[in-house]
């Protein structure tokens, strides 16, 4: 334990004790801090100037005016506090991303009380602020971008919730740890050799084989389809541009295999698997995945891709 502690670290520890991490935090007087803003101080300075003016001119109304400003400031304390109080922040869903880019986390705000919450600003340290208002007894969800520096679970920092409504003279804020994490997929690294073996072993050799054996029909051409899969015959019959559809027999499917990547560190392996996974998905090839502790049978489709990416992202994590 460090004897000399930076105030920042001390503050963090204190905050952790005061507002422990939880997936659902209701803001109350224990968790809300409030201080005047610069404008609040300017406002008080105007009140003070008017007070001195009132005294010097022996002007009761000027004095009353300065009392009014002070009083309004006092009312603003309560209203600003109230605006934040009673809102429940909940960790919501996540949108994964590749390591090195950004993902997003959802924060849900639920009002359990009889008053609404106007102009709440949510922010992770160092990221873009988002403004949200919640009506009484309703809920709102906000997606906040979060940087993903490394693969795996990336835990979000404390979320700062702040409001200056109604008068902007005071800032009420809280800093909550929603125990919230975002999944970072491995950063894809291109590699020439596909670390995959199919039913036929030699399939693994050619890296980007079309490998589509069974002609299954045609469908209208969609921009982006490979030129090689265009059904030229139908074009010749003046039926327009069509794309050939193939269905793979189960034997032609590929297994992306961890063990085929030798002599690389695990992160690098995952990155290469990831790149190939995306590549195979793009070229509509069914693929499976073999990791030391998991095996996912080959399939194709967006859900399958998601699942595979998730498995890669969580590899080695508890």
């Amino acid at each position: 334990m460090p004897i000399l502690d930076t105030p920042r670290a001390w503050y963090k520890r204190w905050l952790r004790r005061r507002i422990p991490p939880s997936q659902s935090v209701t803001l109350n007087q224990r968790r809300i801090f409030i201080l005047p803003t610069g404008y609040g101080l300017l406002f008080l300075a105007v009140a003070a100037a008017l007070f001195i003016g009132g005294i010097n001119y022996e002007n009761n109304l000027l004095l009353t005016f300065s009392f009014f400003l002070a009083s309004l400031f006092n009312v603003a304390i309560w209203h600003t506090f109230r605006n934040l109080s009673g809102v429940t922040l909940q960790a919501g869903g996540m949108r994964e991303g590749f390591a090195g880019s950004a993902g997003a986390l959802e924060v849900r705000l639920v009002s359990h009380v009889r008053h609404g919450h106007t102009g709440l600003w949510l922010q992770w340290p160092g990221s873009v602020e988002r403004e949200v208002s919640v009506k009484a007894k309703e809920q709102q969800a906000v997606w906040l971008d979060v940087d993903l520096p490394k693969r795996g679970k990336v835990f979000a920092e404390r979320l700062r919730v702040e409001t200056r409504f109604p008068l902007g003279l005071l800032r009420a804020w809280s800093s909550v740890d929603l125990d919230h994490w975002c999944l970072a997929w491995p950063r894809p690294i291109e590699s020439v050799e596909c670390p995959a073996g199919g039913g036929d072993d030699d399939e693994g050799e050619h890296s980007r084989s079309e490998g589509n054996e069974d002609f299954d029909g045609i469908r209208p051409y969609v921009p982006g389809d490979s030129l090689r899969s265009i059904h030229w015959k139908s074009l010749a019959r003046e039926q327009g541009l069509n794309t050939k559809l193939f269905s793979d027999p189960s034997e032609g499917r590929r297994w992306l295999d961890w063990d085929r990547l030798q002599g690389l560190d695990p992160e690098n392996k995952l990155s290469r698997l990831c790149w190939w996974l995306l590549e195979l998905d793009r070229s509509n090839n069914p693929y499976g995945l073999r990791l030391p502790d998991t095996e996912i049978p080959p399939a194709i489709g967006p859900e399958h891709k998601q699942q595979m990416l998730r498995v890669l992202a969580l590899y080695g994590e508890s």
Partner: protein
Amino acid sequence: MQDVIRQAVTAVSTVVLGKEEQIRLAVSCLLARGHLLIEDLPGMGKTTLAHALARVFSLDYRRVQFTSDMLPADILGVSIFNPQTREFEPKDGPVFTQLLLADEINRATPKTQGALLEAMEERQVTLDGVTRALPEPFFVLATQNPVTQAGTFPLPESQLDRFLMRLSLGYPSAEMELKLLSGSDRRSQAVNLAPVVSREQLMAAQQAVDDIRASRDLIDYIQRLLAHSRSAGIFVAGLSPRAGLGLLRAARAWALTGGRDYVIPEDVQVVLGPVVEHRLQALSGGAVATATQKLLEAVPVVRRQ
């Protein structure tokens, strides 16, 4: 009405032994106008259940065995050129029935699966630009092998959402197995079952489901379940609004099979697993059933102050 439904459940139970709850759920699913997915190993009595349901509810019944070489046309039908009339004539596929047993649906390619699921959702089929409505009632009972089996195409999540419930019959208990072994062939028994519910009665019961009361308190409970599924980090993605509507509909139907004209929280709790588990993925990678259980435990039935 309730008596008829109870008799139907009892009748089906005489062929599908010891699965009272699953049968009641399956009937509820039928009453709620939902489609049913049964996930089981082969030979667990899925076909028998389908047969029995069809008989008891006096429904037309067709069975389609899905294979990987199946094309959409094999299910939906095709237009055939008639040399006599020199016109294309539609030839209906097996989907034009009241109860379709789609056996081992995950053996078919995603495309074929998709064709069926679209028909299920829209309750109509479009062939060569001609749209034709499917019969009323229309009920699909699909069976699926556990995904880990080789040679299967797992149903994508978006498609799974179209099934109101997913059930698993499971192995019978020892006692029931004994009874099963000593009795005659279940499937032929099922074919010989006497109809209990007429088509009109079924339609009326489906209508009645919509009239089952769901109080504000109950809807509030469902809403809290949905909200919690979305927020608590148990699942990869929370329950969709469609899932919520399905949950309410299933709970209503379950209440009806229980002889009540209003829904209580226990109805929701019973149908929650079958209705939501196939739509969710546990975030921690564990079993969805455990996560669903966690969800139930985390949400109080009655609001706390």
